[in-house]
């Protein structure tokens, strides 16, 4: 990752595309530290929090949300040109988010199903991650992101070092924390073995299987987990259902879902035989 000039407070922008605003909230969620960030960062654009606005240039731009309209596709390219370091925050920005599932719709007018006058709506048929449109310098995973990871990123940037973000599976974190394994103890399907850590293995701590909101880790053995789920009695449709969550459009999960006929609500006849 590029290094930034740190002699002056870094000019930071926070922007959003299609999303719930929850990841931006992580910045407001750092507590009283928020009031002292000003020594290192000058937040020049953060529409959700301030009436002072700036269209750049930005040393650091935190981008929430996925690209789901033509205007957004143009706008992110425009922003990239005014930004030194572009960091995507959250599942929408890094893998498309839950709204990306509409990418599986075929020959269906989703807009007409909801709006009486669909011709008023300008939307793309897909909702795609930021990295499909512009170069991304770093990403924070999660739905939502973890405030601690955001602080680590900001701290690292202010000191000109690489952020130390954990690189292991939720499963490994869960084991290290000594949690009861929900697969072994309760027979709950769990995406922990293939999902990037960062949440603190939250779902197993709350007696349910991981639903993959930090997305697949690099080189995750998704098909290996799918085979295990099949051995536990899940058919192809049910396996696709498990992967088709907030990071279902991430390539590794997407391939597993498509091979099994698509996510719930968007299924085609092809691929139904897999795991049957």
């Amino acid at each position, binding site marked *: 990752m590029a290094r930034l000039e740190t002699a002056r407070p870094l000019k930071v922008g926070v*922007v959003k*595309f*299609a*999303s*719930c*605003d*929850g990841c931006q*909230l*992580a910045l*407001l*969620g750092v*507590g*009283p530290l928020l*009031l002292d960030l*000003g020594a290192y960062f000058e937040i020049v654009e*953060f*529409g*959700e*929090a*301030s*009436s*002072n*606005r*700036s*269209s750049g240039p930005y040393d650091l731009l935190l981008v929430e*949300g996925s690209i*789901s*309209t033509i*205007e*957004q596709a143009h706008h992110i390219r425009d*922003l990239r040109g005014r930004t030194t370091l572009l960091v995507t925050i959250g599942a929408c920005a890094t893998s498309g*988010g*839950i*709204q990306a599932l*509409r990418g599986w719709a075929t020959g269906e007018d*989703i*807009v007409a*199903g*909801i709006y*009486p*006058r669909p011709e*008023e709506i*300008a*939307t793309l048929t897909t*909702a795609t991650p930021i990295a499909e449109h512009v170069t991304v310098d770093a990403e924070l995973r999660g*739905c*939502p992101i973890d405030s601690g990871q955001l602080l680590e990123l900001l701290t690292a940037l202010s000191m000109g070092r690489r952020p130390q973000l954990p690189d292991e599976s939720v499963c490994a974190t869960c084991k290290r924390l000594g949690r009861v394994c929900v697969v072994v103890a309760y027979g709950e399907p769990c995406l922990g073995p293939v999902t990037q850590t960062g*949440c603190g293995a*939250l*779902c197993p*701590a*709350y*007696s*349910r299987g991981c*639903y993959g*909101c930090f997305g697949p880790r690099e080189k995750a053995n998704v098909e290996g987990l799918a085979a295990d789920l099949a051995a536990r009695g899940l058919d192809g449709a049910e396996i696709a259902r498990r992967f088709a*969550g907030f990071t279902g459009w991430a390539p590794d999960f997407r391939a597993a879902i498509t091979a099994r006929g698509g996510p*719930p*609500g*968007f299924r085609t006849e092809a691929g139904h035989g897999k795991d049957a």
Partner: protein
Amino acid sequence: MARTPKTPKTRTPAPETIIDRRIVVDSLSRIEGEGRLRVVVRGDEVVEARLSIFEAPRFFERLVVGRTGDEVIDIVARICGICPVAYQLTAAMAFERLYEIDIDPAVRELRRLFYWGEWLQSHALHIYLLHAPDFLGYPDALTLAKDHRPEVERGLALKHAGVAILERLGGRAVHPVSLRVGGFSRVPTRLEMAALRPELERAVSDAQATVRWVAGFTMPDFDREPLLLCLRDPNGYSLDDGRLVTSEGLDISPADWESSFVEEQLIDSTALYARGIDGRHHLLGPTARLTLAGDQLHPLARAELEAAGGVDPIRRNIFRSITARAVEMLHAAVSALAIVDAYVPPDAPRAKWSPRPGRASWSTEAPRGLLFHRYDVDEAGHVTAARIVPPTSQNQASIEDDLRIYLPRVLQLPDAEAGARLEALIRSYDPCISCATHFLELDIERLPAGGADHVA
């Protein structure tokens, strides 16, 4: 999105319409989501006052098709990062009603605690980080903190008290993971609950101080008599049960919203508006609840409300919603503390159930107003169709009405100042545009010529 800075612009008028004046705030600040304000006046006459939404649609009603009740709970949380529990709980209660699941009273109390936690964090966020800067003349809370650090720190502490509840019960404050059809996946131990106590005790006194602080703000003059809509529960302050009532006497089940209200896509509009089937619209949220259910407030909150001047000035002046929110924050904190103190873990975190086909519907009170969900469910327990009506789409007609009423009072001001005043009025509704599951994009083709207004 980072657009051109929001400085309001005046279109250079064409000679034949020289008396027209347009004020456009391209990107509203300090609200959740993306909206734009456009007003057109001719002389003293308001030709148009419109809050436009350019939040990209995400089609949640479509995304839940094929999903189970438990999956719906996880998915609809993502409609809003500020009030995910409102969406989760409304969905859970809708499915539980259809499936005729008896919820353990101890689980019901825990859920109320969960919801009070969300109210606390959402109201504290809005009061301190978004709304108070308007009254004290600052662009944001960070700047406000330079002169009023103790107050902003108090706000952050209040917000954290809510976050602590959400994290304890749900693992995290944004998109918590524990709420399930029938109960929770896990419930806290008594020891874990007791740990919440000190922070909540402080929140009660901080919330009292907040009511006194905001009640002392100088409010813009504004006076009108709105129609009101909220839940009213004989067993407590409006939250997740009772009856859906209006100020004109409507009294129906929270499941029956669709019998009295509709959503319309108006011919000259780009948004879905919710209104009564009689065409009238209502004001939702803290003001409505305080007015129609203020007798159900905790005595501490009621006393602060009276000391702050009672409900009448709040009802008539939307800017005073900040006081309503502070009173509700006090009620939430003191109610949460009572639940923590009385807590005995339920026998089981979650009731057993099986799905059945039919229509699942319910309404609850999100921090910013009434929220309605309806799901049609098949034999397998999978959703076949859904409707989600967030508070802001129900409030939108009220917001625009208020803009029309308020406009003449700011017309003598320069455009930048007038735009800022109008934006503050919109902010008084705590609008959550991310929640707008199916708001539309602004149809920019319909804007009058004059390219500077057309930032999309």
